[in-house]
């Protein structure tokens, strides 16, 4: 495929800290791969598993849009703005770190693991006032169709962030196809991350936890070769 980059699941960075088992699509922490720094404004795509009762203690962030998507289990959030909440599969959480925020993210249960995606996107404005938001989505709305879960607009479907990005999630039966038409063909690319199953995107075959970045396109054709769940992230390529 022209204008695309494939990140195979097995080639991702990996850090196993015992309590945290994390796979990094892009350079993160002590994993540094100059060939895998970002896809446009998408800077971090971490696939995290946190053991029961464990989690990320209080730590700071600034100037970054941080999105968490739980895939299994429950995650307990606390931050320096006084927010305390639990996010579950089907929820999406966004933090605009802006001028600075402290937070912790912990497994809400002692005896169950929690799996979630941690996604960082460069903001389109620096030093905004920090904000936190979370939303519960209807999982049925992504069966054999794309469900918008994030956008740049507060009054649009899903959660919003300070960047011209749109996320969609889909869970498709085997053999089903869908076409995604980009919202901003002039500026955007699309990064597809397969959560489970096998899909074909414009002729490129992907398996579980593979990622494909595509740019200079106006649409994307996705076919589920097996039952499959995936996340599409439309991201500005320059920012």
């Amino acid at each position: 495929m022209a204008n695309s980059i494939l990140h195979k699941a097995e080639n991702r960075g990996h850090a196993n800290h015992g309590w945290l088992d994390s796979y990094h699509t892009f350079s993160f922490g002590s994993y540094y791969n100059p060939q895998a720094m970002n896809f446009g404004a998408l800077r971090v795509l971490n696939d995290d598993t946190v053991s029961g009762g464990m989690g990320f203690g209080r730590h700071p962030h600034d100037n970054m849009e941080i999105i968490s998507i739980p895939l299994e289990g429950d995650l307990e959030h606390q931050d320096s703005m006084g927010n305390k909440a639990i996010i579950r599969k089907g929820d999406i959480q966004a933090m605009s770190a802006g001028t600075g925020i402290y937070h912790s993210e912990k497994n809400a249960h002692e005896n169950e693991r929690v799996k979630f995606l941690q996604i960082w996107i460069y903001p389109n404005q620096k030093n905004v006032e920090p904000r936190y938001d979370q939303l519960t989505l209807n999982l049925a709305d992504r069966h054999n169709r794309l469900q918008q879960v994030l956008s740049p607009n507060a009054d649009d479907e899903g959660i919003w962030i300070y960047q011209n990005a749109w996320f969609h999630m889909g869970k498709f039966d085997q053999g089903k196809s869908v076409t995604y038409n980009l919202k901003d063909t002039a500026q955007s690319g699309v990064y597809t991350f397969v959560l489970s199953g096998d899909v074909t995107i414009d002729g490129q075959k992907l398996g579980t936890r593979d990622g494909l970045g595509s740019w200079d396109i106006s649409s994307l054709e996705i076919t589920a070769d097996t039952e499959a769940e995936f996340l599409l992230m439309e991201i500005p390529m320059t920012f």
Partner: protein
Amino acid sequence: MEKLKILAIGRHPEIMQTVIRLINNNPEWNGTAAITDKEAVQAFDHEVFDLVMLCSGIEPESEENLRAYFTAHRPAVKIIQHYGGGSGLLIAEIYEALKEQPH
């Protein structure tokens, strides 16, 4: 081998403590924090830094003035923006900056 000297400037004292701790975790790097523009200029005049890292909360006018001052006094100095405020991106940002300059 001489340590890589990094001047990190940002308005959030707690975050700056974290940034400096993370920089100094690398035995080959040495970090200095500055909260105000005055502290930043004083530190810059006092020591030859290899890298200036702009962290959160710096007002656009201050950033413009600091960049102008640093490049006027040491045109070759590398100035980068630090994003994220913690351990996630810091190491890669420094490596990427070093990649782009002889050291």
